[in-house]
């Protein structure tokens, strides 16, 4: 049986119902959400019985020049479905987003990696420091304006 990829359009109304104003847009592949409500959304995705997303596969980020996107891929082991959530961070200066480490501990290293290479600060991360590069390295290499 193949894992079912939940469409963003399918998940978005159910999120909006509980946390109105948190979803910016949704399409077949993913759901784009407001960065400030990410912790609430993730908590809901993990705890509500209909979603039951107990497993965080992947966290990464993309630099789109005028905004950053943090991408979360989550899976429900019991329900066998997956979802892609994107949080949009407008602007280039001092990008910040709430951490999801209190929801899934597995987010710890992956958020540190995003911080290290993309320079996005995760608010309330227990140990936010560089992971691949050394302390004192200037800049964040995966940003498009690096080099």
């Amino acid at each position: 049986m193949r894992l079912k990829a939940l469409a963003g359009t399918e998940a978005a109304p159910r999120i909006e119902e509980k946390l109105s104003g948190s979803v910016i847009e949704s399409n077949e592949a993913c759901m784009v959400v407001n960065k400030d409500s990410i912790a609430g959304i993730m908590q809901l995705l993990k705890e509500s019985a209909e979603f039951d997303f107990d497993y965080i596969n992947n966290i990464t980020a993309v630099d789109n020049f005028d905004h950053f996107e943090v991408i979360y891929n989550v899976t429900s082991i019991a329900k066998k479905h997956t979802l892609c959530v994107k949080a949009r961070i407008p602007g280039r200066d001092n990008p910040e987003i709430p951490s999801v480490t209190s929801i899934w501990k597995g987010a710890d290293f992956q958020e540190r990696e995003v911080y290290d290479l993309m320079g996005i600060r995760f608010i309330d991360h227990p140990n936010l420091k560089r992971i691949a590069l050394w302390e004192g390295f200037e800049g964040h290499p995966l940003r498009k304006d690096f080099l």
Partner: protein
Amino acid sequence: MVMKTELVTLNMGPHHPSTHGVFRMRVTLDGEVVVEMEPMFGYLHRGLEKLAEGRTYTQIIPFTDRLDYVSSMAGNLAYCVAVEKLAQVEVPERAEYIRVIICELQRMVNHLIAVGFFINDLGALQTPLQYMWREREKVVDLFEMQSGQRFLYNYMRIGGVSHDLAPEFIPALKKFLDDFIGYYEEFEDLLKGNEIIQSRTIGTGVISAEQAIDYAMSGPCLRATGVNWDLRRDDSYSIYDRFDFDVIVGENGDNWDRYRVRMGEIMQSHRIIRQALEQLEELSPGSVNAELPQLLRPPVGEAYAAIEAPKGEMGFYLVSDGSIAPYRWHCRAPDFVNLCALRDMVVGGKIADLIVTFGSIDICLASVDR
């Protein structure tokens, strides 16, 4: 009288022989007991994600060899599966069978090496490992027939594989599979009942199923805790739905279970290869590569695809802007995420168990640091 003791902070690595590469642990010890452990890595960070942004989709395939160099073929496959999802490429059936055979051989090798080094960390220096290397050598010979390389194979292509099976490959593979059963039994006879191995591994480095899911562990480490989760069956990417195999699970999530799960998976891979060979021989000869333009330009969009690599879920997140190079190339390395849980597995245990537990996660620093 109360003994006055003091905590000692010890740096293990980055050049410690048991760290499987350049990995460093800052361990705080109370006598022999670990009270705090912080993993530090990045010594092998090559910036592959940045480098990939300047290369065409095909030119990136050699990078995926260099992620987890113990199982390069799995890296190849994970990346090709992700690009195929992004560009919606159909892979010829024959190529799918070849991929499965090659990747399951790779899994057998990876688990042999993982177990060999794990036993090595337990103090059985080199001897069991040498037997594992001997079997690996035979598989490396098989891979050499296919790709011309003994290491870093660069064998898979987007939409298939680079070469059809060499004429000498199938007889050699059959001989390997036949001989392997006896050797496998030998490994089991020598190691499984060993009292030292049992007493050192049973009940050490324990992690519960809930914790393992919370830490997003994957692969044998997750299954050792009792979670019945294998992307080969649950996502059945490629053609894994055509084979009959068992997902091996443990019970307690200790070092022993991780060792047993790996040994069990070796024989399941053996089973899959046998079935794949049978089904392949009924197929009529055909192309092993999809018809694609020389410079692939996937449509604008993004894709995340993951496979069950030997070490766990290896996934790629790709963003295409419609050009010949990816706009963003991200690898979700299984051992990198599995390492998150290491602290919880070792704190409260003895320092000697720390080495064993670390070895039981089975990491490859090239894929952790990328």
